């Protein structure tokens, strides 16, 4: 084979691989391989992971949620997988593995939307494939893997909504934020970020007062509504009550600080 033909072939492959859709699929596959390799390094479950696995297994068996102090969504998803026929540990591993593999593609689209620089977005996504903390999140069944994914999707949809000023995107963003909140109470900060973003766009005069107020009000209504709905539907009355008290305590603690 001639050298020029070989280089042209490499170039074509590179061009194909760097197409956004192909690149996203490659990112997903690379993360999956990386996480499977890392799984071999740490086959034992972490301390907190055992709590989730046990709670989901008991929930699937007896129908009782034994850790109401934890947001019920992660355990509920593991429970669903167990009810589909998976072993408790396998279900929990799969629950954190899949969102973990989706984080680099989400980082790519988020970086692309935030900075509009394809090369930078590619670099950021590749870092996510190798990021040690993200790898640990993906191979250990804890709520952070899903939380990071949902928070990334929330940030991305939030940026899209800010840019496009479309109401449906604000609704989508509010739903994603609420789901992130269902995994971790830190998800509440996304509400403040939405406010900051709208205030900033208002300052730049890209939004009218009326539209900004409407969108923020909509966001403020949908996010807690989805959180209430999902928390209640997933865990029932008792975890929902405990979660509500915890959220109120978070607010109180933050105000006291």
């Amino acid at each position, binding site marked *: 084979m001639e050298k020029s033909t070989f280089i042209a072939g490499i170039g074509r492959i590179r061009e194909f691989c760097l197409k956004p859709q192909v690149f996203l699929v490659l990112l997903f596959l690379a993360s999956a391989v990386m996480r499977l390799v890392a799984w071999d390094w740490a086959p034992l*479950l972490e301390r907190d992971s055992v709590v989730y696995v046990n709670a989901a297994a008991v929930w699937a068996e007896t129908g009782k949620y034994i850790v109401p102090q934890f947001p019920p969504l992660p355990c509920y998803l593991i429970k669903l997988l167990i009810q589909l026929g998976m072993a408790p540990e396998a279900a929990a591993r799969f629950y954190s593995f899949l969102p973990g593999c989706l984080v680099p593609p989400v980082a790519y689209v988020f970086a692309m939307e935030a*900075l509009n620089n394809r090369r930078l977005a590619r670099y950021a996504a590749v870092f996510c494939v190798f990021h*040690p903390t993200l790898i640990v999140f993906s191979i250990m069944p804890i709520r952070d893997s899903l939380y990071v994914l949902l928070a990334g999707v929330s940030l991305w949809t939030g940026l899209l909504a800010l840019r496009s000023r479309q109401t449906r995107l604000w609704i989508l963003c509010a739903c994603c934020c609420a789901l992130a909140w269902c995994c971790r109470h830190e998800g509440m900060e996304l509400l403040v970020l939405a406010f900051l973003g709208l205030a900033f766009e208002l300052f730049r005069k890209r939004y009218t007062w009326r539209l900004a107020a409407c969108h923020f009000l909509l966001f403020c209504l949908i996010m807690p509504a989805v959180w209430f709905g999902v928390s209640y539907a997933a865990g029932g009355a008792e975890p929902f009550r405990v979660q509500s008290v915890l959220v109120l305590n978070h607010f109180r603690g933050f105000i006291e600080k």
Partner: protein
Amino acid sequence: MSAFAEKFLHTFFQQIPNGTCLIFSIGTLIAAALMLPKRRHHGRFYAFFWGAFLFMVLWRSCKGIISVRYASILIYPMVIATAFMGLRAEAWWRLLCRRFRRLPAWFGRALAWIGLFGCAGGALLIAHHKLSTPTGPSREMFAAISECRERYPDVRVLTRGNEADRISYYTKVPCIPLEESRKELFLESLNAVTEPDRHLLVVMEDRHLEKLEPRKEELRPGAELSPVFEKRSRKAKHKDLKVYFYRNPLSFSRIPGPLPAPADLPGNLLAPGSFGPARFAGSFISRPVQGGGGFRFTFVLSAETPPGPAPGVEVRTAAQQGKGEARVLQLRAPVPGKGLYRGTVTFRVPPGAFTLRIDAKGTAVRLEQFRLTRAE
């Protein structure tokens, strides 16, 4: 320094970077934050981007976070900042090339790739190190505990509370959790064990195990604590692990097989009871507890009592040893209005086989044979 400032600095400089950037320093982030607004297209947007990031870091620093996982959302801006710095390296090299003409210009392009693969490789090494060197219980330790469980099926594990679930999950051995890893707590729990045949595995973890290890004179007379597993870590941050096997001096077991007929027992020692028309449906005898110079048994009798005020129930027990020596104990355990009669009985028995008999209304409602042996 005030506690608040200390917490702020700890969260800002230690916990957040630990969880989010690790090898990517806070310096990189600040440099990226300063440089990004200079870009023309999107310039104003960067202000919001970094403003939001600053808000997310600051509220965590003010409130303080227990685990680095609470800052996991910050990974997104961190990786973007790091990627940006990698790209800037190329531009900086070009500037250097203008200043020092001998430097090769092609290296600028390579620098970005070197930065990318360097960071990725570094991250990979850190991930490997983090995952392959567990700080807590290891697989070997679980194997050692499981081996003990096979020899002694009723074994329990005494350990620090936050590891109890994991040990229980991997070994299927029930755990007795302690609030923290302190020698006093371990000793207190060991000396509180009163069941004569209770086998315990004590899992201790500390950087300096010598501080936790109890001396023989601190244990109750005759008790033994023998090491089963030991793993000492060379790393300063990691903990040492040790598993001990604890055995009380006397061992106690129920003897299976045919029981002697009630007639063979010293039933004549029992005075006739006077507890009215009660019918006993069943009984339960607990494991004995060592104390008071003998062994204390707790038993519960299920009885159907007639309506109206419940009569006092007199229950008599007899413990007969192989040599024929017996002690009869009387006890009254009236529980008005309930169908259950609860009582305890304590008697001294030397090592050997003996029979415990509980009589109610002149009938043996429960017969059990036990063996008490001194541990070797």
